């Protein structure tokens, strides 16, 4: 907290000294003012709502497909040899490269942006989960089999709960990718959301709006990282008896 206070103070001093053109380097007060105005006329909340809805939907789809895909990739040699290499190939493709394809397939609409978000996060989730499941002690499955768990129920009874820590890692990674994919998508074609608000700031040469939106994006990232994933991670690490509990 003190760190951020010092940072803002430094920012204020530099802006006050007019080291750079105030048009390009507005003071914290100016940014706060714009932030307040954007908040008051509802444009900021509206854009945040639209962006969050998109990312949550796309991310949800990625999780729902990526987690089971990762588990199957880790368990089946055949699936790994076939689908696995495709997944690795997709991973090397930055998500924004999907945009031209998505635009041609779906047109300039929400479905295209959703597609880009899913394409950006699904693969990284699947790969993280696959790694985690592969590193599980083999005795978990053996123990369950000797206790009478039928092989087809091993997935839900053992592999899914056992890989919770790696699912969480994948989910965190996937969230980052999903969020980035969404922002790139929104920046590149006009369709509401925070990305567009950012672009609008550029078009109006309104640096304070650009900065205000950037700060909102950072705060959202910080909140999900600390509050959502942070508390989930603490809970899982404690239960698994991992270091730093």
């Amino acid at each position, binding site marked *: 907290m003190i760190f951020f206070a010092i940072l803002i103070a430094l920012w204020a001093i530099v802006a006050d000294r007019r080291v750079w053109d105030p048009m390009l380097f507005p003071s914290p007060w100016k940014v706060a003012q714009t932030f307040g105005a954007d908040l008051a006329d509802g444009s900021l909340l509206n854009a945040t709502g639209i962006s969050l809805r998109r990312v949550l939907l796309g991310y949800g789809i990625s999780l729902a497909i990526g987690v089971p895909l990762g588990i199957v990739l880790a368990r089946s040699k055949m699936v790994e040899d076939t689908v696995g290499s495709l997944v690795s190939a997709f991973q090397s493709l930055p998500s924004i490269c999907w945009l031209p394809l998505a635009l041609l397939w779906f047109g300039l609409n929400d479905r295209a942006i959703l597609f880009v978000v899913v394409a950006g996060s699904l693969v990284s989730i699947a790969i993280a989960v696959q790694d985690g499941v592969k590193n599980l002690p083999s005795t978990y499955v*053996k123990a369950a089999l*000797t206790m009478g768990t039928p092989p087809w129920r091993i997935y839900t009874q*053992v592999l899914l709960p*056992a890989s919770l820590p790696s699912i969480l890692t994948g989910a965190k990674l996937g969230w980052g990718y999903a969020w980035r994919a969404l922002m790139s998508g929104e920046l590149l074609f006009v369709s509401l959301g925070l990305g567009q608000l950012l672009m609008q700031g550029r078009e109006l040469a309104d640096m304070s709006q650009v900065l205000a939106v950037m700060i909102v994006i950072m705060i959202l990232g910080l909140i999900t990282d600390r509050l959502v994933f942070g508390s989930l991670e603490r809970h899982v690490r404690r239960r*698994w008896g991992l270091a730093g509990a």
Partner: protein
Amino acid sequence: MPKLEIRNVERRFLGQDQQVNALDKVSFDVEAGEFLVLVGPSGCGKSTLLNIIAGLEKADFGEVLIDGKPVTKPGPDRALVFQDGALFPWLNVRKNVEFGLRQKGVPKGQASERAMYFLDQVGLAKFAENDLYTLSGGMKQRVAIARVLALEPEVLLMDEPFSALDAITREDLYAEVQHLWQGRGATIVFVTHNVREAVTLGDRVLLMASDPGRVQWELPLNILRPRHIDDVDVARVARQLAQAMRRGRETYTKEGWSHDEFEEIDILRDLDSALGDRSG
């Protein structure tokens, strides 16, 4: 009819440049209520054999019969206690013990009751709601034993369950396992590389040798129970067993034991029956 029959079991692995006979025509019976210990150096195939009995691995040749019926897949009638416990960290102590019962379809309340009963048997009732990471290694292995006992298996398989524990904890568990076994009349197949442990626990010890993995000879033990690892009789038999094991590694040929070795075994038998007489 024996509880468990191992018939000509063979298992081969593909080594670097040749086939390794992990198990070469292994045959023996286990009687109901018997505490059988398989002891041998690492690489003699004792854990592989246990996995085959559990149904987790398939034999390349031969078969395993339980109550006269061949084993084809793993099941709760042959529950296995693993060296690392293999407890599930996503469940608390009680739910770990309930796991197998729930898989069998035992209703929640009843499973919970039975889990508590068996946790009480291993002295951990008051830790029932704990997460696993709060337990010591010895306590975890007790949970692993309770988890398996709760299934009331026909045969209890134990794969070096105490080898990762410190000496004091191990000694406590020897006493507990003997007590539980005597109380329940279970059939146990216990694998270890520790000769002292084998003599402390077993009704009968099968000494295994490696390359190819096989049963070298068997030694019935009639030493009075409960036994302690420091008992004079246990120590004496264990020392002779270890000597025979060491000598066996040097003199065993495909044809069998040399005459000297037979004498050695006779001496062991005599000693053993003498001990048995005194105790019985």
